[in-house]
Structure formats: structure tokens, C-alpha cells
């Protein structure tokens, strides 16, 4: 008998063709053309594993969580709490107590603004955000500043679409109590240096709130390395279902904060004279949560882990670099934001004087799905003196061929509007 030679077991790198087989929605034609889905920045598609896990949950173990002692309720509670653990590991949070399930990024940011802001902000204090924020990281701060009398300030952006660091040095000072910023702009694609910005906030005694809606689905995230106080993101942009999001919060800060919404599950004791609050994270999860959605998110995280976040980041970098090169060659097309090596997997552009809605309609007739409008980020568009832009965004399932389809459809738009 001869000993078998040990072989090195290496997981094979996934191919886009294999990944696409897991996404039933991509196997269709739109207006007679194979669908090219370039709108994952708005919402990603879901692999069959996620869809089936949610279906299975409803078929086998659904019941309300945290109350019943019957078998189904225990199974549902376990599934829900397993999802929380999965999320904590995914972003390297030290404890599941720091993982609050919300509806989406918007709700997470509102939770921080209202709950932390109302308890901590007063006239004379300053809240600092940036001009590249999504409306969900602008409007809650505007509202809370109105309520508390604090002053809202904005870090401007440079012509290249990056934060103006000279201005930041002036604006971030001892009056600043919160610095809230996006990790990746949903319009410019700009990847901000989160750890550095958090450190600068902490240096003046401010808390750092990170909008991770665009970064968490695409870049490996480690909240301990970033040292962020809060990080909000959404399931539906990372292969999971709509209706559930996550707010990571530093435990000591969460413990000191009053609740956001009141109701069931978030209380310890309710008396007619008043109530006391449940422990973390339940203090911030009033009412029956999105249980099936948590199960779906958990499986989405499995999927991302299996493919590998590093693979995803590199895949998107390649597609974005290729798309950048191709789009640059189209006469009359101008890309917003920084160079490909300093941005995530999305390209927003303006094309001659064709209105983005017209571009998107023409592309749609070629089966190419892009986003048109202000992408919930009007201040950025005001900055560039435009009312809207067209955005193509890339994810795990997109291919270089699809970039070619985008380019061909853009040439068609040019022909129709003949400029």
C-alpha cells in the first residue's frame, strides 16, 4: 500500500457564470433583451438560497419571538438570534448586544439622531455631516438640530468628489458632538477613510456615526478596527431581503441612551406610573421584528462569506476600472467623482444634455437597468450644478460583457437624441 500524496485543498474561485445561476431574477429578458441589472446600489438581487431560506422559515418554524415557550416560538427565536450572531461576526462586533435590528439604514440613522441626539445635544453644540451624504444621513440631523437647538455643519467636497480635508480640520472642533459620514458615497462612489475620520472625531471628543449602506455589502468591515461608535446598513443591498437593517452601536453608548420606539419587547416592566427598559439590544427593538427577513439576511451573509468579501471587492474593482475606461471614451459623457482606484463599484455620469430619465428609459428598452435621478442625494447634484445623473452600479453577479451592453445602449441613446 502506498500512502496517498496529500493534496492541498483550495476552495475554487467562483466564476460570475456560476454565481449568476443562483440568481433566478437575472435569467430573464426585458424588452426582448437579456436583463443587465446595473442598479445594485439601489437594491441588490437575491440568491435562491436566501429566497428558499425565508420560504422554509415560513413553512416550518414561524412563530413570534422572545415570548412563547412552545416549540415553534423557540425555533423562531433561535433563528432570529442566530442571525444576530452572524451579523456580529460579519462586521467583527465584540458582542451581539451591540447589534440592533432595524428596518433599514435610514431607521438606524434616525435611531441615533433621535435617541442619542435628544439626550445629548443642546444649543451651542455642533453636528457635523458632509455634503456627500444620502438624504437619510442629512434629514434626521436637520430635524434633531431643530429640536435641540444644535447647529448643523457640512464638510464640503472637492471638485474631484472627495471630502475637503482642509475644511474638515476647521469644522471638526471641540463644539462638534457628532460627526456622521458615509463610508462610501452612493453617487460619487468615493470611499472615505473611515478609520481616520473616526479617529479625528474622537480626538475632539465627538462620537462617529458611519453610514455603511454602500460599504458593508462591498468591502470587508471590522467595526473594532474602524473604532466606529455607530454603523448603520441595510440587508437589501447585500443580497438579503428588504425590511431589515442593522445598527451597530458601542455598548456603553447604547446603554446610556433612552429608547427610540416604545412598545412590546423593549420593556422590562410596564406600570401605569411608568416603565423600565429591557437589556440591549432589545431596548431598541420595539414590537415584533422582521424574523423571516433576519433569516434571509443570515443566509445572505453566508453567501457573501462563501464567495469571500475580498473576491467581491476585487471583482467590482475590475469591472469598475473597465467600465470607467469604456465610458470615458464616449464623447459627451462625464463621470462624476474620483478615479476608479479611489471609488467603489458604481459610476454616475451625465451624458450631453440628455436628461437621465430619458437615458434610463432608452437603456431599459435595451434590457439595461440603471438608476436615474438625484439618488436621494440632492446636495451633491447641487454641488455640480446639475439636477440629476444616471448611475450604473456593479455587484457580485455583474460581468464585463454587461458593461459592453451598457456602452452599446448609451450609443443608441446618443443616436436617438442625435447630438
Amino acid at each position, binding site marked *: 500500500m502506498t500512502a496517498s500524496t496529500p493534496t492541498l485543498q483550495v476552495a475554487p474561485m467562483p466564476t460570475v457564470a456560476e454565481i449568476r445561476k443562483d440568481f433566478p431574477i437575472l435569467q430573464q429578458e426585458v424588452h426582448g433583451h437579456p436583463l443587465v441589472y446595473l442598479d445594485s446600489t439601489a437594491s441588490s438581487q437575491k440568491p435562491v438560497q436566501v429566497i428558499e431560506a425565508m420560504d422554509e422559515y415560513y413553512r416550518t418554524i414561524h412563530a413570534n419571538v422572545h415570548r412563547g415557550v412552545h416549540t415553534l416560538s423557540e425555533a423562531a427565536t433561535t433563528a432570529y438570534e442566530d442571525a444576530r450572531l452572524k451579523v456580529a461576526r460579519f462586521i467583527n462586533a465584540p458582542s451581539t448586544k451591540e447589534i440592533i435590528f432595524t428596518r433599514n439604514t435610514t431607521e438606524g440613522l434616525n435611531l441615533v439622531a433621535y435617541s442619542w441626539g435628544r439626550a445629548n445635544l443642546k444649543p451651542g453644540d455642533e453636528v457635523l455631516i458632509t455634503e456627500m451624504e444620502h438624504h437619510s444621513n442629512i434629514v434626521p440631523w436637520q430635524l434633531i438640530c431643530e429640536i435641540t437647538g444644535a447647529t448643523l455643519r457640512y464638510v464640503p467636497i472637492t471638485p474631484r468628489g472627495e471630502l475637503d480635508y482642509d475644511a474638515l480640520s476647521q469644522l471638526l472642533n471641540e463644539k462638534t458632538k457628532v460627526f456622521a459620514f458615509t463610508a462610501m458615497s452612493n453617487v460619487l462612489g468615493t470611499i472615505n477613510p473611515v478609520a481616520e475620520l473616526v479617529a479625528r472625531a474622537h480626538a475632539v471628543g465627538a462620537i462617529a456615526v458611519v453610514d455603511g449602506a454602500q460599504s458593508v455589502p462591498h468591502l470587508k468591515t471590522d467595526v473594532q478596527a474602524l473604532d466606529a461608535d455607530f454603523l448603520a446598513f441595510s440587508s437589501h443591498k447585500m443580497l438579503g431581503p428588504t425590511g431589515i437593517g442593522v445598527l451597530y452601536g458601542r455598548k456603553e453608548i447604547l446603554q446610556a441612551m433612552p429608547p427610540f420606539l416604545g412598545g412590546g419587547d423593549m420593556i422590562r416592566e410596564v406600570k401605569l406610573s411608568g416603565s423600565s427598559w429591557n437589556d440591549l439590544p432589545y431596548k431598541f427593538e420595539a414590537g415584533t421584528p422582521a424574523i423571516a427577513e433576519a433569516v434571509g439576511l443570515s443566509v445572505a451573509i453566508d453567501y457573501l462569506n462563501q464567495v469571500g468579501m475580498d473576491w467581491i471587492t476585487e471583482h467590482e474593482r475590475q469591472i469598475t476600472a473597465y467600465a470607467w475606461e469604456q465610458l470615458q471614451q464616449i464623447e459627451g459623457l462625464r463621470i462624476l467623482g474620483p478615479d476608479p482606484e479611489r471609488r467603489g463599484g458604481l459610476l454616475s455620469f451625465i451624458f450631453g444634455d440628455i436628461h*437621465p*430619465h430619458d437615458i434610463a428609459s432608452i437603456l431599459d428598452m435595451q434590457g439595461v437597468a440603471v438608476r436615474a435621478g*438625484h439618488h436621494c442625494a440632492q446636495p451633491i447634484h447641487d454641488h455640480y450644478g446639475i439636477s440629476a445623473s444616471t448611475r450604473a452600479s456593479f455587484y457580485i453577479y455583474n460581468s464585463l460583457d454587461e458593461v459592453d451592453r451598457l456602452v452599446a445602449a448609451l450609443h443608441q441613446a446618443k443616436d436617438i437624441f442625435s447630438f
Partner: protein
Amino acid sequence: MDDFYRENILDHYRYPRHKGHLEDPDIHYHDVNPFCGDEITLELKVEDDRIVEAAFDGKGCAISQASASMLTEELVGMTLEEVRQLNKDYIIDLLGIPIGPVRLKCALLPLKVLKAGVWGLEEWPE
């Protein structure tokens, strides 16, 4: 594709009719589509409840601007009561193409501005 951006719509988009402003308009109204930023301003001169002059200004996509251009062509001579009766189908007939639910908001913005200016009706036209 050629159906959607048929020459008539592109023609109104490129060479809008009644684009500009009136001197001392009797009715002046401006509104935007919050989802996409399309803007329309409409100005009317009215005599004996009848529109005698119409002008629009605005910016936005081909559908919204062509819709405004076509609508202003039809308005002159119309009574204010007739304006109240105008509906979604009227605009779709004018444009002459089928329009999905999202682009419908673009197409109907000029009618919304018209109805709000004349009758104070703030809802999107049914």
C-alpha cells in the same frame, strides 16, 4: 424604442412651443416632481374664464418637457371648466405613446401644474 421617443416627442423637446414667460399673467404656477427634479412653470392669461395665452418654462426629461409643450398648444381657447375635466388619458393621447407608472409622473407634471394653478387641485391627475 423608436415608438417611445418618436419624432413628435423629440421635436417638441428640441423645439418647445410656447416656451417662455408672459407679461402680467393672470395665473402663474410652479411645481417640481420630487422624485426626479423635473420642473415646470406655467403662465396663463385668462379672459371671461377662457385661456387666451399660455406659456411654460421648465427643465427636465423629454417626456415632461414635450408634454408641457403639447399641452400649452392645446390650452389656448380652452375654458377653465374644460381644464378641470382634463385627465391622465388626455395627456397620454397627446403624447401618443404608452407610458409606464414611473414615467407617467413626468408626463403628468405639466397637467398637475395647470390644475393647481387654475383650480388649486394639488393631487396628481387621475
